[in-house]
């Protein structure tokens, strides 16, 4: 799949400047080619997971979400198109 399709950006092409950065990585020789991510461990431990609870959004929050919706007709939020495929 081409990058314009992958990115949902019409006519997008890889940039020469960005490709030069990627070439540096392509030519690099990490001592360990498999990222084990054993240094930056940011994942939460399973014993410390937050409670799985449903939090109802507040009235103002719901109103703003509706206000942000791009299209509204007769009190309904209008989606752009139906997914065809």
């Amino acid at each position, binding site marked *: *799949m081409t*990058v*314009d399709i*992958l*990115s*949902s*950006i*019409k*006519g*997008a*092409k*890889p*940039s020469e*400047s*960005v490709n*030069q*950065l*990627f070439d*540096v*990585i*392509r030519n*690099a020789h*990490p*001592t*360990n*080619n*498999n*990222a*084990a*991510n*054993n*240094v*930056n461990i*940011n*994942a*939460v431990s399973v014993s410390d*997971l*937050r409670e799985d609870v449903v939090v109802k*959004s507040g009235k*103002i*929050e*719901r109103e*703003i*979400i509706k*206000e*942000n*919706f*791009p*299209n509204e007709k007769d009190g309904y939020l209008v*989606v*752009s*198109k*139906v*997914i*065809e495929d």
Partner: protein
Amino acid sequence: MNSQIKEIHQQLVSKQITCTALVQEKLDLLKQNTHNTVNSLLEDSALEAAAKVDAKIANGEEIGLLEGIPFGIKDVYMVQGTYTTASSDLLKKYKSAYTATAIQKLLDAGAIPLVKENCDSFGHGSSSENTIFGAVKNALDETLVSGGSSGGSAVNVAKDYTVFSIGGDTGGSIRQPAGYNNIYGLKPTYGRISRYGIMAYASSTDCVGPLAKSIEDIRIVLNVMSGKDGKDQTTYASDEILENAITSVEGVKTVGYFKNFIESEAIDPIVKADFLAAIEKIKAKGIEVKELDFFKSDTLVSTYYTLAMAETASNLSRLDGTNYGNRIEDKNLKETYAVTRSENFSEETKRRVVGGNQVLSQGFSDAIYLKGLALRDQISENFEKDFEEVDIILSPVTPAAPPVIGDSLKDPLAMYLSDEYTVGFSLGQLPTLTVPQGTVTGLQITAAKRNEEQVLKFANFLKDTL
């Protein structure tokens, strides 16, 4: 210790000034300013909050240290009911439905937000020129860039339009504009401050942090914003940093610097000479200084941008005009997505999204993205070894003085490479502070993970030494 926050607090408590007059004065300065720092002003809510603080003082009630202190917020943070544009066309009419945890903590402490601040769109840039609100002009020279991406925040602090501002730092976006405008700017350890409610750029290095004119103000604001947050499970609990813990340099015995940073072809000879002069002054105070080996600058920059682009491509995929944003209808759903994104993203944002999808795609993923992850591991391991030998790593913030407005946009590669001194510490997730001393764009002080106290301690030492 010198602190704008404490000074204003004292003036409020002793009734030398009213909070309303203070807030009004700052709002007027922001309105009149010609540096393009403002995306939207929060005038009504700020004046309302100020009146409440004045009423409390008039009633003889005690107020907290941050109560009534005016501050600014980079326009990538959710603050319920305010426009949160990320300086982009796509979100120019988007309103936050909720408030970011870090900002909520400041609001709970009584600080008063005045302004959503101009920045590079979605944090994509190092000059605050990639914005629909006009390039942010440097606080010291309007012909120069402010730095980025938190350029509006840095200029507002430097010009005293805000007492402090909250920026976001993914690869240097707090530290570099702080350096370009001669103020303090802290990127804390990744996870010290919750990222809940900041618009995600690269989630594995995104950090929330303060910009201010004094070390003490950085300490105060950092303490308020820090802490574990169930809404961001990468956060960790941290202890408050006490004022008297950072007044003496005791505990800092050895300082290191990366030899290759100083021997880089890109470094301006004046920056190099000033940096080495600073090193000599530190040595003269009896602190041992060690030269350290580090990765080449192009490897650091390329590793950072490979990972950041991959993450931003994923994070920004949600921006398609379905539930919010400036939707542009077309013949079918896919075309609607594509036209909406093509018309509303800036060239720099498109470049990064496309680059990210490139490295994540089949054939590229092994050769580039996974290799980038392996390099980041090595960079982090290198830092771990360094901090067994030294207490602090000192480096310049940028290789040269700020460029003239317009130059960075012409040459994206040069802009990426100008981040060579900041991105490594982001990949290492280390606490790093820019201080306005040592070189024309300041110095960066870095310590081991979770050791912000050491960073602030050394900053105090440098303030008295350089």
